[in-house]
C-alpha cells in the first residue's frame, strides 16, 4: 500500500477512532450502565460522574504510560541486565555501569556534556536577554525579533549543514568558502584551520549551533517578561536618577529572575538531549562525544543494550533535579 494512502487511512482511523471512542463510551455510560432514570437515577448520575473523567483520560493515560512511564522502568531494568546470546537476559547488577565507567569515551561524553550544560544555557540566555532588551526599544524590533527567532524552525540537521558551511576548510592555495576561515585568514591567520577537528575547541564550534537556535526561544520568553514589569518601578528609578544600565541590572533583572530560571532550565533539558547536531557534524569524533550520541552509538552500532541503557539512565539522572523542581513549582502554583 502506498504510504500516503496508509497515512490518510491512519488519520481517518485515528481521528475517527478517538471521536467514536469518546462518543460511544459516554453513550454506554449514560444509557446502558448508569441510566439517569428509574428509581436509582440519582445514584446512577453520581456514579457516571465518577467514571466519566477516566473515560476522557483513558487513551492519553494509556499512551503516556506505555510511551513514557513504562520505558523509564524498563530502561532501568535493562541497565541492570545483560542480553544472552539466543534470547533471554541475565541480571548482572551494576556490571554495565562498571563497564561504562571504564570507558574513556564515556568520561569524555560526560565531560563534554558538562561543558555544554555550562556554556549553552548561559550564552543563549545572555544573548536572548540582550536581544529582548534591545528590540523592545525600537520600532522595527518585531521584525528583528522574528529574524533572530527564525532558527527555532530549522532542524538540528539543517542547522548542522548551515554551520558546516561556515566552518568549511579549503586547502591554503585555494580561496576559502567558509566564512570562519576567510575571516581568520583576513585577520592574519597563517593557514586555514579544520575547525571541527581541533580537540576541546571544536566543542565550542558545535555549541555555537545550539546557542544560535536557542537564543530566539530565550528572547521570546524574556521579552514577554520584560514587558510584564510594572512601569512605575522603572519610572521611579529614572526619576531617582538611575542610568539605563542601572535600570536594567538593578530594577529589571531582579523582577524577571524567575523567568530567567525557567529559560535556563528549559534550555538545559534541550542540551541534555542534544543528539542530532553532534551526530550530523562530527559523530563524536575528535573528542566531541556527548551522552545522547554515546548512547545511540552503544545501542545501534555496538548493539550493547546494557551499557546503552545505563548511559540513558545517566541522562535521566541529570534531568531528575529539574523534573523535581518543575513538579514542585507546578504543585505550588496550583494551590
Amino acid at each position, binding site marked *: 500500500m502506498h504510504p500516503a494512502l496508509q497515512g490518510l487511512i491512519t488519520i481517518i482511523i*485515528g481521528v475517527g477512532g478517538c471521536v467514536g471512542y469518546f462518543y460511544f463510551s459516554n453513550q454506554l455510560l449514560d444509557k446502558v450502565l448508569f441510566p439517569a432514570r428509574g428509581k436509582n437515577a440519582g445514584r446512577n448520575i453520581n456514579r457516571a460522574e465518577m467514571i466519566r473523567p477516566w473515560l476522557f483520560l483513558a*487513551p492519553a493515560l494509556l499512551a503516556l504510560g506505555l510511551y513514557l512511564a513504562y*520505558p*523509564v522502568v524498563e530502561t532501568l531494568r535493562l541497565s541492570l541486565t545483560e542480553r544472552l546470546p539466543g534470547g533471554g537476559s541475565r541480571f548482572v547488577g551494576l556490571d554495565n555501569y562498571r563497564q561504562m565507567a571504564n570507558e574513556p569515551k564515556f568520561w569524555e561524553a560526560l565531560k563534554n556534556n558538562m561543558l555544554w550544560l555550562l556554556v549553552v544555557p548561559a550564552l543563549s540566555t545572555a544573548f536572548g536577554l540582550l536581544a529582548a532588551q534591545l528590540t523592545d526599544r525600537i520600532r522595527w524590533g518585531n521584525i528583528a525579533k522574528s529574524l533572530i527567532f527564525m532558527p*527555532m524552525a530549522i532542524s538540528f*540537521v539543517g542547522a548542522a549543514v548551515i554551520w558546516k558551511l561556515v566552518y568549511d576548510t579549503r586547502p591554503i592555495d585555494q580561496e576559502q568558502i567558509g566564512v570562519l576561515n576567510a575571516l581568520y585568514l583576513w585577520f592574519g591567520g597563517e593557514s586555514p584551520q579544520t575547525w571541527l577537528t581541533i580537540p576541546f575547541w571544536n566543542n565550542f564550534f558545535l555549541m555555537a549551533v545550539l546557542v544560535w537556535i536557542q537564543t530566539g526561544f530565550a528572547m521570546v520568553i524574556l521579552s514577554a517578561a520584560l514587558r510584564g514589569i510594572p*512601569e512605575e518601578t522603572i519610572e521611579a528609578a529614572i526619576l531617582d536618577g538611575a542610568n539605563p544600565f542601572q535600570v536594567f541590572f538593578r530594577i529589571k533583572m531582579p523582577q524577571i529572575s*524567575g*523567568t530567567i530560571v525557567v529559560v535556563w532550565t528549559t534550555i538545559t533539558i534541550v542540551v541534555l538531549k542534544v543528539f542530532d547536531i553532534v551526530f550530523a557534524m562530527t559523530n563524536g569524533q575528535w573528542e566531541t562525544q556527548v551522552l545522547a550520541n554515546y548512547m545511540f552509538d552503544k545501542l545501534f552500532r555496538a548493539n550493547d543494550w546494557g551499557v546503552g541503557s545505563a548511559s540513558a539512565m545517566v541522562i535521566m539522572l541529570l534531568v531528575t533535579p529539574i523534573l523535581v523542581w518543575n513538579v514542585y513549582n507546578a504543585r505550588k502554583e*496550583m494551590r
Partner: protein
Amino acid sequence: MDNIAGKKSGLTWAVHLSVLALVLLWLFPTAGLLVSSFRTTDQIATSGWWKAAFPSEQNLILRAASPDSQVQEGNLYVIEGDLFAPGQDAVISAFGVSSRAIDAFQAGDTAPLKKGGEVQVTAQGHYRMTNSEPFSGSRGQRIFVTATTPPEFTLDNYRNVLFDPQNSEGMASAFFNTLTVTIPATIIPILVAAFAAYALAWMDFPGRALLIAAIVGLLVVPLQLALIPLLKFHNEIGIGKGYLGVWMAHTGFGLPLAIYLLRNYMVGLPRDIIENARVDGASDFQIFVKIILPLSFPALASFAIFQFLWTWNDLLVALVFLIDSTGDTTVMTKQIVELLGTRGGNWEILATSAFVSIAVPLGVFFAMQKYLVRGLLAGSVK
C-alpha cells in the same frame, strides 16, 4: 520606555546598531546556505558565497573543439571556436596551455602548443588554433583560463535534487516520506490530548492534582529512555519498524506537552459559559465538542505548530522507529546526514537538499508565528 519622564536616551543609535549587528549575525549562516543553493558547482567551490553578487575571478579548465573539426586554410590547419557558451559574459585575463603554467599568456597573445602549432585566445574566449601539420588525437586541446565571470544564479540545483529521476540522492521521495510521518503524528495527539486536558481542567475527581504533577514530570523525561523498550515492544506486537510505529511514538512523546498546554488554556476559559451549559442540560461530551474545542483553537494551533516542527525536524525517532534496512522510508533529515557523510564537499547538493527540508517549517514559522510565541509563553513551566 526611553521616553519615560521626558528623557530621551542618547544611546538610541547604539541600540539600533547593536540590533542590526545581532540580526545580521543571526541571519548570516542561513543566508550563506540559501545563496549557495542557487550557485553553480564551480562558483561554490571557487569563491565565498558572500562574493556571489560580484563578478568573480575563476580559474577554469576548458577544452577546444576536437581535431575532427579542423579545416584547411591554404597550407594551415585551423580549429576555431568559442570557449564560452553564447550569453556567458566571461572576460579572460590570462590563459595557459599547460597545467603547470595556467596563466603564462595574456589574453590576445599567441601561445605555442606542445604538439606543434600555436593557439591564440582573445579576452572574449574566442580561440584560433593553427598548425602547418594536421592536428591529431581524438580530444580537444585543454586551455586553462583565468576569467572574470559575472554573477550568475541558477535553479539547476533544485531541478537536480527534486526532479531528476537519475539522482540517487533525490529528495523528492524523502520529502513525501517526511510529510507522511508528520501529518498523522500532528493530528492524532491533538484529539487525545484535548479530551484529557478537558478532564484535568474541568472535571473533579480524586487524583487529579497528582495526574497533573505527573504530566509536568513527564514533560522533561528524555526520549532517549524510550528507545529500546519501545523498539522491543513494537517488535513484540509485530509492527516492527515502519510508519505505524513512528506515528505511535510521536503521539506518545508529544502528549505531555499537548495536555499541559491545552489544560492551562482550558482552565482559563470563563467558568460561567460552562456552568450555564451544564444547567441547560448539556452533557460533558457536548460541552467539550460544542464549547471547549472551538474556544481552545489558539492553544490547539500552538500545539499543532510545535508538534509539526518537531516531527518534521526529527531525526532520532525516525532513525529508531521508522527507517529499516531497505531505506525506502527514509526521511529528509536522515537523507541529509547521509549526504554530509558521503558528499561532504558537494555543497550544491547539500545546500539545496537542506533548503528543501528547511523551507516548509520556515513557511509555517512565518505564517503562524503568533501562535508559536503564544504556545511558548504558555508552555514553559513557570
